[in-house]
C-alpha cells in the first residue's frame, strides 16, 4: 500500500462491493473528491484480486496496444473521450502546474460516512452476534471502556442553538416518503451549523440516506442506513481494534459513542435501521442531538 499522510486503513473494513459503492457515490457527487481516496480504494481492491486469474488485464500486452493503436502521430492533440470540464480545469492547472487538486469537503464527508457506516455495522454485528451467542452485551463491551453507562448530560453544559423547522420538515418529509414512522430526526443541533440538505447514500450496498450540516470548516452528518433484514455478519470480517466506546442510553436506545480528539461518532439501531451521527462534535453535543429526537 502506498504511504500517504492520511491513514486509509479503515478502507480494508469494507467488502469489495461496498468499496465499489463508494466509488459510485463519489462519481455521482456534485463536488470533486480527493483522488487519493479513490486510488487507495482501488489499491485495496487490486490487492484482493491479484491472485484471481483473469480478474485484471495483462499490463505488458496493454502497453503494446497503447503504443500501437493510441500513442500514434495521428492522435496528436486528440482525445477519444473528451471532457469539457476537464479542459477548463486543465487550463487552471497549466497556470499553476505545481498545485494539485485540493481535497474538499466531500472527501471528509465520504470518509466520515464510510467510517460511520463501518462503525455502525461493527456495532450492529456485535449486537447480533452477542444476542445469538447468548452473551451479555455489557460483558462484550467491557474490554473497550470502563464507563458503561452515562446518563443524559447536564443541559447547562450543552450549547444552545436555534431550531430550524425547515430542516426538520425537510428531513421528516424524506422519511415520510420512505414510509418510516419511527422518530429519528433530532430537534436540536449546535449553534452556527447550517443545514446543507440530503445526501443520497443509496449507492452503498446497504442503502441509506443522510443529511449534512456545516459550520465554517466543521461539519457533521446524520445518516440512516436501511437494511433489508438482519445483517449477515459473516460478510463483514472486521478486525477488532482497541477503541474506546461509550454506551449511552437515550429514548430507550443503546447508543454507541466513539470519539477522538476532533470528532465523535454515535450509532444505534432501530429495527432494521441504523442511525449514525458523526462529525466535528463534542460528546456532549452529540448526546444533546440524540436526546432531542422525538422532542
Amino acid at each position, binding site marked *: 500500500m502506498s504511504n500517504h499522510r492520511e491513514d486509509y486503513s479503515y478502507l480494508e473494513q469494507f467488502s469489495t462491493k461496498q468499496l465499489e459503492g463508494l466509488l459510485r457515490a463519489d462519481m455521482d457527487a456534485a463536488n470533486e473528491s480527493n483522488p487519493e481516496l479513490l486510488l487507495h480504494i482501488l489499491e485495496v481492491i487490486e490487492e484482493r484480486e491479484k491472485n484471481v486469474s483473469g480478474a485484471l488485464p495483462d499490463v505488458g500486452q496493454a502497453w503494446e496496444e497503447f503504443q500501437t493503436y493510441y500513442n500514434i502521430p495521428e492522435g496528436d492533440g486528440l*482525445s477519444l473521450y473528451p471532457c469539457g470540464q476537464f479542459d477548463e*480545469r486543465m487550463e487552471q492547472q497549466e497556470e499553476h502546474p505545481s498545485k494539485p*487538486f485540493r481535497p474538499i469537503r466531500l472527501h471528509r464527508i465520504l470518509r466520515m460516512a464510510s467510517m460511520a457506516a463501518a462503525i455502525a455495522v461493527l456495532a450492529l454485528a456485535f449486537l447480533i452476534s452477542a444476542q445469538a451467542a447468548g452473551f451479555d452485551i455489557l460483558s462484550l463491551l467491557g474490554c473497550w471502556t470502563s464507563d458503561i453507562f452515562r446518563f443524559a448530560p447536564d443541559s447547562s453544559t450543552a450549547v444552545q442553538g436555534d431550531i430550524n423547522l425547515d430542516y426538520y420538515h425537510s428531513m421528516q418529509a424524506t422519511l415520510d416518503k420512505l414510509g418510516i414512522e419511527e422518530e429519528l430526526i433530532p430537534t436540536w443541533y449546535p449553534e452556527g451549523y447550517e443545514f446543507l440538505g440530503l445526501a443520497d447514500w443509496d449507492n452503498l450496498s446497504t442503502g441509506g440516506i443522510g443529511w449534512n450540516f456545516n459550520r465554517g470548516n466543521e461539519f457533521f452528518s446524520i445518516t440512516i442506513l436501511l437494511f433489508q433484514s438482519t445483517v449477515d455478519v459473516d460478510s463483514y470480517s472486521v478486525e477488532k481494534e482497541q477503541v474506546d466506546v461509550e454506551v449511552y442510553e437515550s429514548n430507550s436506545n443503546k447508543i454507541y459513542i466513539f470519539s477522538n480528539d476532533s470528532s465523535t461518532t454515535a450509532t444505534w439501531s432501530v429495527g432494521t435501521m441504523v442511525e449514525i451521527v458523526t462529525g466535528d462534535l463534542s460528546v456532549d453535543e452529540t448526546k444533546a442531538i440524540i436526546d432531542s429526537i422525538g422532542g
Partner: protein
Amino acid sequence: MLPEQERLIENLYVKNFKKFIRYAEVFSGDPSISQDIVQDTFHEAIKHIDILMVHENPDGWLMNVLKNKIRENRRRDTRYARHILSTNLEALTAPDYIDALNEKLSRPNIVELIEKIKDALKPDEYRFFSRFVFDKASHLVVAKEFGITVYASQKRLERIRKKLHDQFPDYVPK
C-alpha cells in the same frame, strides 16, 4: 518526447493501469470500453506531459482525468439512450443494457425510428454507428474491425452523429 518523459509515462502506466481498468469497469461493465477510456487517459497524459513532469501528484492527476472521461462518457450514453430509446439506461451495466435495449427495440415507434436512421445512412455508416450505439463497442474494437485507427473511428462516429442530428434533431443528440 524526451527519454525522461517516456520513462515517467511508462512508470505511471505500469503502476496505475490495472487500478484504472478496475475503476472503469465499475461504471461501464464492458472490458473493451474500459480499456478504451483508460488508454485514452494515458494518451491525455502524453498531451500534458509538461504538466505531469512537475506535478506534485501525477497519480492523482491521472485519476481525475480518468474520472472525468468516464463521467462524460456516461452522460453521452445516457443522452443517446434517453433520446433514441426514450429510456434511462444510465445505471445499467452491459448485460442489463442489452436486455432493456432488446425490449425497447421491439416497440413499433423505435423500429420506425431505426428504419429512418438506416435510410439516412449508407450501409457501412449504419453498421459503424450501430456498433457503438447498440452494441456498445469500443473504438479499439471497431477500429480493428474496419481497419482504421481509433482516431479515425472517433472522427467517423462524430461525422455520423452530426449527420443524424441534422436530420433528426429531436431524436439524435449531438
